């Protein structure tokens, strides 16, 4: 069953939107594309100040004890405004991994910093094209990590990372301090995501989960992040749909506004369908946290949100004609973000497989 947002939740949505619209603008975001290693600290400072980093974490560790629903609403607004820092997802994922699978000591050690936003977290599960490999490329021996995690979002700034590794004969989920880790910056089409390959060489790591349960745990963390990302994607898609609509009712050609041409008008109406389906799946998935079908719901949200954001950014650019492809207008900020978010937390192919495994009862 899906939920209806209550008044408090609606207030979170309205307030975060107001704050982000006032503090994030494309003129600050555009220059970030041309350098590697910089992110929009205005956004991150806002997130800390507003308590967003603490929102979905337990009160005992400095959190506000709210959940995916509330954080999802903020992610939606962050997606609308293209807020340029990956930590909303990464720090949250790392914190949830520690909260769900860590010891009391580990929670006390990491969670307060993650909740206040002073510690930046990342999640490093992927190995090349595989979001959750059967044989991770990073290995754990005697509590030390070796190997490379590829394309870690936020990897250039993160203080700690939760890593899915290959332990002695079995997978493990660990948390590692990144202070002395080699970070190879990836010069990306969406640079403010701070992608990096992390090179571990005898890096000390603390174990969270060992054995078969480690994979389930990793998938669960990925699903939590996927739901947040899906909200962000839906927000981005919604913004692109609205920008397209606004342009279509002002730009004129052949004696009428272009929105009167059905090929334009119907395209925007189709986007409405994508956005609303994605939104509905996001609301549903967030409300299933803790339930047996959560991963299924997360996969559905991820698939429809990826489709929505890609379609909306593609069509919005097309509807703008030549203006759509200029640097200044900044629509490409969304085009880029649509693609980067499509890969972060597992691509479509990954989530399609996860979903079908669940539907056929072949889930690992």
């Amino acid at each position, binding site marked *: 069953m899906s939920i*209806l947002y209550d008044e408090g939740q609606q207030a979170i949505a309205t307030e975060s939107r107001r704050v982000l619209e006032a503090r994030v603008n494309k003129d600050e975001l555009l220059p970030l594309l041309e350098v590697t290693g910089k992110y929009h600290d205005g956004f991150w400072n806002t997130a800390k100040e507003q308590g967003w980093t603490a929102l979905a974490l337990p009160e005992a560790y400095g959190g506000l004890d709210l959940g995916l629903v509330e954080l999802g609403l903020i992610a939606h607004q962050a997606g609308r405004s293209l807020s340029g820092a990956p930590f909303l997802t990464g720090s949250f994922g790392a914190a949830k991994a520690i909260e769900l699978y860590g010891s009391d000591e580990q929670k006390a050690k990491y969670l307060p910093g993650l909740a206040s936003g002073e510690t930046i977290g990342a999640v490093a599960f992927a190995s090349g094209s595989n979001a959750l490999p059967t044989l991770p490329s990073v290995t754990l021996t005697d509590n030390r990590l070796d190997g490379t995690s590829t394309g870690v979002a936020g990897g250039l700034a993160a203080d700690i990372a939760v890593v899915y590794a290959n332990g002695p004969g079995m997978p493990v989920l660990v948390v590692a301090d990144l202070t002395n880790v080699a970070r190879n910056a990836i010069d990306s089409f969406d640079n403010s995501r701070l992608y990096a390959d992390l090179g571990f060489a005898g890096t000390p790591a603390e174990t969270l989960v060992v054995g078969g349960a480690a994979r389930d745990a990793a998938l669960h963390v990925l699903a939590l992040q996927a739901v947040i990302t899906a909200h962000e994607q839906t927000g981005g898609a919604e913004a692109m749909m609205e920008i397209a609509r606004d342009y279509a*009712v002002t730009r004129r050609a052949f004696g009428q506004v272009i929105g009167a041409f059905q090929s334009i008008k119907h395209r925007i109406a189709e986007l*409405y*369908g994508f956005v*609303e389906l994605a939104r509905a*799946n996001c609301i549903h998935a967030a409300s299933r946290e803790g339930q047996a079908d959560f991963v299924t719901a997360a996969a*559905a949200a991820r*698939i429809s949100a990826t489709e929505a954001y890609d379609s909306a950014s593609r069509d919005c650019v097309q509807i703008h004609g030549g203006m759509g492809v200029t640097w200044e207008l900044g629509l490409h900020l969304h085009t880029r973000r649509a693609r980067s978010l499509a890969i972060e937390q597992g691509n479509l*192919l990954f989530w399609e497989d996860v979903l079908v495994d669940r539907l056929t009862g072949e889930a690992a």
Partner: protein
Amino acid sequence: MSDLDAYRTKAAAWLESMVPTYGKEARKGLSVEEDLAIARQYQRAKFDAGYAGINWPTEYGGQGLGHLEKVTFDGEEMKHGFPSFYFGISLGMPIPVLMQFGSDKEFVKERVLKALKGEEIWCQLFSEPSGGSDLAGLRTKAEADGNGWRINGQKIWTSWAQYSDYGVIVVRTDPNVPKHKGLTYFWVDMKAPGVTVRPIKLVGGDSHVNEVFFDDVKISDDHRMSPVGGGFAVAIATLMIERYVATDSAGFGPHLDLFVDLAKDTELNGKPAIEDGRIRQQIARNYAMRSGLQSITARAMAMMQAGMVPGPEGSLNKLVAVRSRQKLSELAIDLQGSGGFAYDDHASQKENWTSSWINAPTGRIAGGSDETLLNTIAEKILGLPQDHRPDKGVPFNQIPA
């Protein structure tokens, strides 16, 4: 257990008890006439058990319950393939409109009761050869004739007209004014002299739609359900009724589980088709689409329950669901390869992929074509401009045919 869950349990048990007499298996091999006779009995049984007119006022013989109970019952009923479709139009639009706009309350009450019991059936005579999407472009005319009216012209695509006792009809009463302004809404007796019904055979082999000819059909002025010239508004009200009726996320085709089963049981390149990425992708995307629609519906229901008005996103249901059903059905046939040729025109659209596929195009046309639904979303929800309409403001009889 919530009240609604209790309602569902009770309804499900009752429906289960009806399966041996009225289910698909029991009706196999019957002619349409025989099936309709059984369907009338089933409708009567529903009435007696308190499942007819669930959300209608009790003063007209309804149950006075909410939309939620209605949708809950429909959801359960849909699982068994009962013959309720004969009454779908009748109880879906014409009768609710009659309750809202009929002036002679005694007459209305009698008709509603008979329709609820399956004794009488109503049809909706809107579309014409000259105007389907362009509803206001219709040409059938009613001319003043003494105290009443005389109707001449032709309607088309009228579902179940051949079995109908009455119909609601929109006709042109004034060709000298712009098209929307010269229409008037009436009810007609389908057995009246001058009414001829001719069935049309559809692609799937059935003939539930008809051409209906009106040849000097006389009706009295008390058949009028709108002001003279005010028929378009009532027609739109008719189309707006029961907006959340089309809430089957499968687009009235087979459940996705059936496709998963097919993919597990079918070999593709020597391996189970379920292992093929193309097949998996379609399953995953269809699931995501359908779960989105279900979530929209669930929220709409929760909103209605809470006394709120649901958002406009419910209008996506038919548009999105039927298109995806059409493509998934194609894929299901592809998957069976040379084993996919067989066709049984009695097979259920909800269980048989070929039947689903051959009948899917009707779903993309009936009740508003994809294009007109997109126009509605674009114009009503997103505020995009109306299409260029050269006939706007022009008296109907001056619009080039």
